[in-house]
Each structure stands twice: as structure tokens, then as C-alpha cells.
């Protein structure tokens, strides 16, 4: 034994003390959060805020939070960010609803919002305080939980009267938001109130790569040296064909005119062909009949017959963004959020944004969707008040200006739309604001995801089949799919 005789007694004592400290520390580490979870008085000045999106969205919200915290030094906002748009965020929110740990403020997309709205606080008074007429067209309707009939009516009538090209300002398009409907009119209403306020949105237009266009001009495949201001479906198809060719003559196409959109991004075309997915009340499936067949014939023609769209195996693992960026695909359907991405690439000044082509009946439409802020109300009055303060801040001209200036999304307030245009005014951004006039809300129905998947599955199969049935039979089979039969009335 080399230990000193004097320390012999001390060592066990020291050891025991160390053990006790260790155990105490471990216990504290394990259960401090548990105590915090059940502590009755939570700090109402600490607000949790959950959102989804890309890293750019994260930095944008960070900026908004910083601005809010500077203005309200007593309140701190804890940012809980889940990367991505679908699935994981949604299921996370559901888990949190289940465990009653929902953050005070939650950013929601339309489709999940419809199912989860009852779990959030009604915030009509906030909307009234801002003034319903100050919101951009369709923004408020998106979150009003009422029948599709009264929601669609205004936008639909506008569409038929305005197949108008770009150029006119957005200010004149402002129309009064309809009053809240009463419950008797709306059999499918579960709630009449707003459970969310829109903060940002996006509509879909066509991006055109100028390098591809000019290369097609150089090769003599197009005569018009610059792209047209306004166009029809036939113009669109011709341009797509002109930009599709075999560059190196190896017998394999390597330049394509158009990135085949998935059906959700094809909705603008479906609408422009004057077809519709459902009736206004979203109770019956109406994607049948000659107009719908026309729309899907056009789709199949682009994808398979004329082959202006790459098959997945032509440009594998290239997502739309990279396909467009690398000039392998001349056109694609995308929203305003695509622009900041392109701004970071060498394509910065080499693309333009085109409108959706007008359909044979002179109709032009596009799809718009909004993201909204919800207040969960899982905590006390004080916390809710602070949460409302943040939501109110996000709809201030300051915050809306920050959102608009990124160019990633349209602001929800009319007064901030000019900020979206950028300095100096960017024509491409103007197109998105002009498109607000003919934009219709993305359709939603309770079983959205299931039906979405069913349509996608049918469409892929139909496009992939060498010996295909005609559009009539395709749409008939789709309408007979279990997902659609069970989600809609016959």
C-alpha cells in the first residue's frame, strides 16, 4: 500500500462525498425539466414559436423575432424550427397537441390547418383590428373556416371577367373581403371564425431560362427573338417544343422545354382549361368532362407524346430547381421563393417570369396558398397576450416589409406589396403581384393528403404507360379511386 497513512481515513469520506454530489447532479439534470414541465407558474414572457421551411425561412423568422424583441424587450421568443414543409412538421405539431406542449404560436400551411384549426384560438378580433380590407386578395378567405361556396365565389367571378395580361397595377384589384358567412348557408362549416392570420403567401408562374430561349433562337427553332408578353396554351407548347432537342446528336434528348409539374403545380393549367377539381363546396368531385380531359390530354402530350418534359431517368436526381438552373430544362412552374435561390446562381439575370398561358376559353388562373400564424392558447392569459402581440407585430408594416423584401413570399398586407417589388422595381416580381388578380386559392378538402397521393399515383402510372388509355378513361378511373370515392359525395 502506497497511500499515506494520514489520508487513509479521508479518502473514503472524500469518495463518498464525491459520489453524493455526482448523484445529486445527475438527478438534477434528469428531472429539472420535469419540474419545469409541471411547474404551475410558467414565465408568460417567454413565448415559443414553431415554424417550418428552409434555412432561409429560419433566418427570415430570426430577423423578425429580433425586431420584435427589440421593440418589446420584456418578451423573449423561443424559435422552434423544423426543416421541411410536409409530414415531419405536421406530425410534430400533432404530437405536441397530444401532449399539450404546443408552442404558443404555430405557423401553419393551409392543408394541415383545415384539420387542426379547432385546436387553435379564434383571432377574429386581431384581424378586425388590422382591418380585413387591408389584407391581400384571398389571404383572409384562406383561413376562414367556412363553406367553399362563399370562399370561392369572389375569385371565381373575377377570373371570368379578367383574362387580362400583365401590366395593370395591383392596387386597383383590391376588392372588399366578403363578410363572414352565417352558419345556415354553409353545411360544411365546422367553425366560422379565423383561427389563423395569413402572414405570407405564394402563387405559381412560369420561369423561363433566357439562355435556353436564346440558344433555341440561335438554332433557328424559334423565330421570335424575345419571349412574348402574353401567350396561349399553343404558344406555350410551341416554345416548349422549340427548346427540346438533342444537343450533342447522340440520339438522346438532353435539352428539354418544360419541367413536368406534379399535379398540384399543374392546377393553374387545369383551371385555365376551365376545368375544376370539385364543386365550390368541395363536396363532389368534378374533375371529369371535356374540359378536364382537354387539360390532361395537354399534360400527357407535353410529358409523353411530344416529350418536351424530361423523364426522371433523363435527368435523374436533378430536382426541378437544379434542372432549371443548369439550363437542361427551359421552363418550370414555381413560386416567388425560387427567386432568391436563383439570385445566388449565375442565372441571376438570365431568366424571366411568364404568366400562365390563357386557356382555350380565354381563362387564365393560378394557384395561391398562404401560411398563417395560429395561437395555441395552451397557456395562461398573459402568455396568450404576448403571443398575440407577436402575431400583431408580424402583420405590422415593418414585419411585412421584411418578409416582402426577401422576395421569397408575398406579404399578406396590401400596403406592403410595393416592398415586394424591390428597388429598382423588378419586372419578375411584378408578375407575381399582377397574378394575384387571377389567383385562386389552392383547393383543400379534409382528406387532402390521401387524395393528393391518389392523384399523383394515377397520373404517374398514366404518363408512364406506353399503351395508355385516353384522358376520359383516365379521369374516370381516378374518380373511381377509393380515396376519392370515400372523400366526396357521389
Amino acid at each position, binding site marked *: 500500500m502506497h497511500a499515506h497513512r494520514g489520508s487513509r481515513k479521508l479518502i473514503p469520506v472524500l469518495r463518498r462525498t464525491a459520489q453524493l454530489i455526482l448523484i445529486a447532479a445527475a438527478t438534477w439534470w434528469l428531472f429539472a*425539466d420535469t419540474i419545469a*414541465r409541471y411547474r404551475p407558474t410558467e414565465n408568460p414572457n417567454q413565448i415559443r414559436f414553431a415554424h417550418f421551411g428552409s434555412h432561409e425561412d429560419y433566418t427570415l423568422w430570426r430577423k423578425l423575432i429580433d425586431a420584435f424583441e427589440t421593440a418589446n424587450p420584456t418578451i423573449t421568443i*423561443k424559435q422552434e*424550427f423544423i426543416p421541411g414543409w410536409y409530414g415531419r412538421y405536421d406530425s410534430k405539431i400533432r404530437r405536441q397537441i*397530444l401532449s399539450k406542449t404546443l408552442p404558443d404560436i404555430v405557423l401553419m400551411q393551409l392543408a394541415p390547418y383545415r384539420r387542426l384549426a379547432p385546436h387553435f384560438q379564434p383571432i377574429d378580433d386581431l384581424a378586425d383590428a388590422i382591418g380585413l380590407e387591408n389584407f391581400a386578395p384571398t389571404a383572409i378567405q384562406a383561413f376562414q373556416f367556412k363553406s367553399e361556396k362563399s370562399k370561392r365565389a369572389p375569385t371565381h367571378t373575377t377570373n371570368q371577367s379578367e383574362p387580362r395580361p400583365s401590366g395593370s397595377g395591383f392596387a386597383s384589384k383590391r376588392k372588399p373581403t366578403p363578410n363572414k358567412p352565417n352558419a345556415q348557408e354553409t353545411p360544411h362549416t365546422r367553425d366560422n371564425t379565423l383561427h389563423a392570420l395569413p402572414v405570407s403567401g405564394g402563387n405559381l408562374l412560369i420561369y423561363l431560362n433566357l439562355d435556353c430561349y436564346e440558344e433555341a433562337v440561335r438554332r433557328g427553332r424559334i423565330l421570335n427573338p424575345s419571349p412574348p408578353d402574353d401567350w396561349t396554351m399553343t404558344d406555350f407548347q410551341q416554345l416548349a417544343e422549340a427548346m427540346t432537342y438533342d444537343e450533342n446528336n447522340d440520339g438522346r434528348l438532353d435539352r428539354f422545354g418544360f419541367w413536368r409539374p406534379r399535379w398540384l403545380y399543374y392546377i393553374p393549367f387545369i383551371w385555365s382549361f376551365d376545368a375544376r377539381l370539385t364543386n365550390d363546396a368541395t363536396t363532389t368531385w368534378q374533375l371529369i368532362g371535356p374540359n378536364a380531359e382537354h387539360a390532361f390530354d395537354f399534360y400527357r402530350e407535353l410529358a409523353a407524346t411530344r416529350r418536351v418534359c424530361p423523364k426522371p431517368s433523363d435527368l435523374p436526381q436533378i430536382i426541378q*430547381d437544379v434542372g432549371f438552373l443548369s439550363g437542361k430544362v427551359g421552363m418550370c412552374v414555381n413560386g416567388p421563393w425560387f427567386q432568391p435561390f436563383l439570385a445566388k446562381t449565375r442565372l441571376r439575370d438570365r431568366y424571366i417570369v411568364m404568366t400562365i398561358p390563357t386557356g382555350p376559353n380565354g381563362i387564365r388562373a393560378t394557384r395561391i396558398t398562404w401560411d398563417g400564424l395560429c395561437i395555441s392558447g395552451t397557456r395562461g392569459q398573459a402568455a396568450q397576450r404576448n403571443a398575440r402581440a407577436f402575431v400583431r407585430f408580424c402583420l405590422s408594416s415593418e414585419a411585412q416589409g421584411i418578409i416582402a423584401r426577401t422576395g421569397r413570399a408575398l406579404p399578406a398586407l396590401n400596403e406592403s406589396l410595393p416592398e415586394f417589388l424591390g428597388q429598382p422595381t423588378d419586372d419578375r416580381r411584378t408578375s407575381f403581384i399582377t397574378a394575384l388578380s387571377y389567383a385562386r386559392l389552392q383547393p383543400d378538402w379534409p382528406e387532402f393528403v390521401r387524395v393528393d397521393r391518389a392523384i399523383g399515383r394515377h397520373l404517374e402510372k398514366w404518363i408512364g404507360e406506353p399503351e395508355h388509355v385516353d384522358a376520359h378513361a383516365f379521369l374516370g378511373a381516378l374518380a373511381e379511386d377509393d380515396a376519392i370515392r370515400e372523400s366526396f359525395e357521389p
Partner: protein
Amino acid sequence: MKIEVNTKPNRSWRTVLTYTALCVVATLFALPLIACLLTSLQPLERVYDANAPLLPSQPRWTNYVEVFRTLPFARFMVNSTLISTTAAFGAVLTSSMAGYALANLNLPYRRLWFTALIATLILPSQILFIPQFMLFDALGWIGTYKPLIVPAWLGGGAFNIFLFRQFFKSIPKPLAEAAELDGASPWQCYRYVMMPTARPVVVTAASLSFMLHWRFFFGPLMYLSDFNTFPVSLGLRMYQTLAGTWINLLMAATVISTIPLLAIFLMGQRFFPDAVSPNSDAD
């Protein structure tokens, strides 16, 4: 009897053959990793050019800087290190203790527990996920690293226990018994006789646990909500989906994320063969 006669020339011939086979196989196994490395040094345009040579004409090292600039990747690395180290430590400690109890001590209902151990090996982890989430939530652990670390301190994985048990069983009985007859307590026996002998298993179990937690994807996904607490596995996925397919950055991030695994593997690998021993009595 020809074998006996031809031993010498046969031998050298076989050596050459074995080397050739080894070289071919090793090349096949290493090629994807090399391709990953090469892609990580290309600009995006060349990555998507089927005619461009695989070898970058000018290695673009800035991709590696870009990785850290696009996303807070350094943060992810630190988080992963923290989670994996703590978890690995707990896994080795508790799994070796459990293995010792199963192999050398009279654990009551030993057969039952052992069966349960094997059963948990084949239990689809998703069965447990929903109830576990509810449990961790009740404890207020959501959003912390505890749901990722604490399970490692509670047994450290069936496979590790299995490894330790098999190893302790194979230690000649007289060794342990001699210590016990000298008056050593089971704890002392574990600490001073068994664990030093079991060094290969300790290294193996520690490395495996570290790697397992480093690669763990779905736990962090469901339990962590704050972006700044993300580990590397979630970070990699973000390069795939969020910033467009920046495949060159994704590959660069992949390369960086595997460096710690590579280091641990290279340091620990000489112990691995001694640790895995399914030949011993399987009860």
C-alpha cells in the same frame, strides 16, 4: 498427396491470386467513397455533366467552406459529439454490468431475462416509439438530449449486453473464482478482473455505440425541435432537401461528418475481431 509435393510453388501462386482478389474487392469497396470525395471537390455544373471527367481539373476546396456557410454545420458536429460521447459512455458502463450479471452472477430468472434480451434485439423499434414519446413528454424531456442519451444509460443496447455476456462467459472460470476466493466482492471482481480482460469488448461496444448515436436519425428528428440542437444526421438531410440539390455540398458535408467515425474506427478496429465471438456457448 499431390498437395504435399507441390506446397512451395502452389503457395506463392495462391498468394498472388489472393492479393489480386483482395485488390479487386478493396477497389470496389473504396470506389464509392472516392467518388464521394471527388464529387465534393467539383462545382455544381460539372457534377451534372455526364461528359466531364470524374477527376476535378481544379479541386474546389471552397465547397468545404461553403458547407459551413450554408448551414451551421460546425454546430451540428459539436452537438453530435456531445450526444454520442455521453451515450457511448453510459452504454459501455451499463451493458457491461448487465452482461456481467447475466454471465457470472446468479441473476434470478436468468433464462427469462436472456430471452427478453434476444426479443428486444428483434423488436421493431417503431412499436415502442409512440408510447416512448408519451413517456418522455410526461417527463418534460422533449426538446432536450435526454431521450437520446438516457436510454443508452439503461442497458446500452441489447447487442452490447450480448457481446459482454458472451465475452464474460468465455473468460476461464478459474480466473474469476480465484479472485472471489481471495475475498474480492463482485464489484471488485468486475472492476479489476473482468473489465480489464474485456478491453476488446469495451472498445468495440464504445465505438459501436458512438457510431450508432452519431448516425441516429429518427430519434433526433422527433425529439429535437430547436434547429441549434440538431445533430449531424439531421444536418445532412437538410443539404439533400433544402438548399436545392447541392450534391457537391452534400458530399462535402458527408465527408466531414464521417471523419470522427473514421478516426474511431481506425483506432478501435484491432480490438473488434476479439470482441465478436458467437462461437462460445449460446446457452
